[in-house]
C-alpha cells in the first residue's frame, strides 16, 4: 500500500463511489415506494398463475406479500446486480488496465515503489469503493424503508446480512475483473473479458432456475452463492458462503497482483 497513491485514487474516484451508492439507494427507494401499490392485489394472483419455472426464474417464489421480500426480489435480484456489476468491472479496469493502456502507469511505476505495492494499492481502492457503497446502501436503504413504509420498515439484521453477502459477491466479481485488468494491456479487452464472464455466470444462473433438468448450471456460477430471499429468511448458509466468496475473491486479487508484477508492460 502506498498512501499518496491511495489518496489520489480516492480523490479521483470518490464522486463515482458516492454516485453509485446514492443512486442505488434512490432506486431502492423507488422499489419500496411502489410496493404498497402492487401488494395484495390482482398482481399477486396473476403471478401465481405463471408457470412454476418462470416464477422461479423471476424471483417470485415467495410472492409479493411482504416489503422485504419484494425488495429482495425486485431490487437485489436484478437491478442491484446490474448496477454493482457495472461498477465493479469498470472500476477494476480503470485502476490498472486503463493506466497501462493510456501509459499513465509509466509515471506511477517510475516511483521507487514495487509493482506489488502499486497493484495492492489499486486493489485496496477498489475494495474500499465496494465497502463504501455497501455501507451507504445498508444504512441508506434501511432508513429509506423506515421513512416510506413507516412502522418498523424492514428488519435490520436480515437486510444487513443481504448487503454483506452482496458486498462479498462483488468482492469476488471485482476480483476476476481486477485479474483481467492486471492481465491485459488493452483496456477494452479487459473490459470485455470481465463483462462476458459475468454475463455467462448470470445466464447459467438464469437457465438453472428455469429448468429443473439444468439445475446443475447454477452451481457453475458465482451467483449460486447469492440467493437474496434465502439470505433474508436466514435459510442460506451464510458463514460458508461468506468464507467461500472472500477466499475466492482474495485469491483472484493475489493472482492478479502477482501476474502484474511479473509481466512485460508496454509503457
Amino acid at each position, binding site marked *: 500500500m502506498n498512501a499518496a497513491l491511495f489518496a489520489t485514487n480516492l*480523490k479521483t474516484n470518490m464522486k463515482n463511489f458516492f454516485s453509485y451508492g446514492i443512486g442505488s439507494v434512490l432506486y431502492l427507494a423507488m422499489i419500496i415506494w411502489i410496493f404498497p401499490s402492487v401488494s395484495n392485489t390482482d398482481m399477486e394472483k396473476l403471478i401465481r398463475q405463471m408457470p412454476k419455472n418462470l416464477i422461479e426464474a423471476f424471483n417470485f417464489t415467495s410472492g409479493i406479500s411482504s416489503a422485504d421480500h419484494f425488495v429482495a426480489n425486485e431490487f437485489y435480484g436484478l437491478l442491484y446486480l446490474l448496477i454493482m456489476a457495472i461498477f465493479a468491472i469498470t472500476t477494476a479496469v480503470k485502476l490498472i488496465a486503463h493506466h497501462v493502456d493510456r501509459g499513465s502507469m509509466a509515471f506511477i*511505476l517510475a516511483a521507487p515503489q514495487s509493482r506489488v505495492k502499486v497493484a495492492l494499492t489499486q486493489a485496496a481502492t477498489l475494495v474500499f469503493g465496494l465497502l463504501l457503497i455497501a455501507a451507504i446502501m445498508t444504512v441508506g436503504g434501511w432508513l429509506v424503508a423506515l421513512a416510506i413504509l413507516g412502522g418498523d420498515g424492514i428488519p435490520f439484521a436480515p437486510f444487513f446480512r443481504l448487503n454483506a453477502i452482496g458486498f462479498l459477491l462483488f468482492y469476488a466479481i471485482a476480483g476476476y475483473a481486477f485479474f483481467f485488468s492486471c492481465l491485459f494491456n488493452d483496456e477494452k479487452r479487459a473490459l470485455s473479458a470481465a463483462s462476458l464472464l459475468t454475463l455467462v455466470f448470470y445466464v447459467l444462473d438464469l437457465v438453472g432456475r428455469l429448468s429443473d433438468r439444468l439445475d446443475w448450471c447454477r452451481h457453475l456460477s458465482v451467483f449460486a452463492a447469492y440467493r437474496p430471499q434465502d439470505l433474508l429468511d436466514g435459510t442460506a448458509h451464510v458463514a460458508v458462503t461468506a468464507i467461500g466468496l472472500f477466499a475466492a475473491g482474495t485469491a483472484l486479487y493475489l493472482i492478479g497482483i502477482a501476474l502484474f508484477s511479473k509481466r512485460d508492460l508496454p*509503457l
Partner: protein
Amino acid sequence: MIELNGLTKTFANGRGIFDLSFRIPEGEVFGYLGPNGAGKSTTIRHLMGFLKPEKGSAAVCGHDCWRQAPLVHQRVGYLPGELAFPEGITGRAFLRLMAGMRGTRDEKRRDALLERFQLNPDIPIRKMSKGTKQKLAMVAAFMHDPAVYILDEPTSGLDPVMQKVFVDLILEEKNRGKTVLMSSHSFREIEKTCDRIAIIKQGRLIAIEDIHTLQRKQRKIFEVTFGDEEAAKRAAANESFDPTRRGRTVDFVVQGDYNAFLDAIRRESVVNVSVHEQDLEDIFMDYYAGEGDGR
C-alpha cells in the same frame, strides 16, 4: 552508472533490440540517437524495469533494472517518451502524488523548477497544452534531485526558448556530477549537451562516438552568397570543398575542416552565409563510408 550487457528483446513482429552493450560512467551526458522505431524506447523501458530482458541485463547504479526496479527508481529521474498523466487531477496534485510516492519532502527544488519553466501547476492537466505537459513531466523527473536522469525524447514539444532552458538545466546537472541518458531522433537537439553519442538502428548499436568525433564526421553544407559573380567563380575554383555554383551563390560541403574552408572564402566579399546540417540518415551513411565497415 548505467550499464547494458548484451541486452536483447525480440518482439512478436521480429523487431526489438539485439545484443546491446554499453557503459555510461558517472557524470557523463549520453545521447541515444536513432530513427523512430529503432529501439530507443525499448532500451529505456528495460532501464526502467517495465520490460524483462530476454537475454542479457541492464543495470543502473549497480542495481539490476528488472529485479531491483524500486532501488533503481530511487536514483533515477525519468521522463517518458509518450506523456499520459493520471486523469482528473491538477498539475500540483500530480506533483504531490509523485513526491508522495517517492517520499520527497523538500519542495524548494520543485518550486524553483516551476519558476524556471514558468509553469503554473494549478490547472487541470487535461487543460494543459502539449508543451506545458512536457514541462510538468520534466519537473516531475527533476524535482527529487536524482543521481541519474533517463529522458526519452526530452526536447520534443518544447519551443525554442524552453529548449534553451532545458539545455542549460542539463549542463547545470552535468556540472553537479549527474549522469544523463537521453534519446532523440535529431542530432541537433542533443549535440549541445552530450559528451558521447550512441547510434542505434533496427535494434542494433552501430556506433558509439565521442561527440566531437561525430561532429567532425558530420558534413555541413555552407551556402555562401558573394558580392558578385566573379568572386563566386573564383571561390568555386577551389575544388576541395565540392562547390556547386548558382550565380552568385555557391554551396560548399565541409566536413570538420572549418579553418581551411574559412581560408578559402576569406579573400572574397561575402554577403550571406547559411548552413544546412545533414540529417541523421546522412550521418549514418557517412559513418559507414568513413569506417569502411561500421559494424
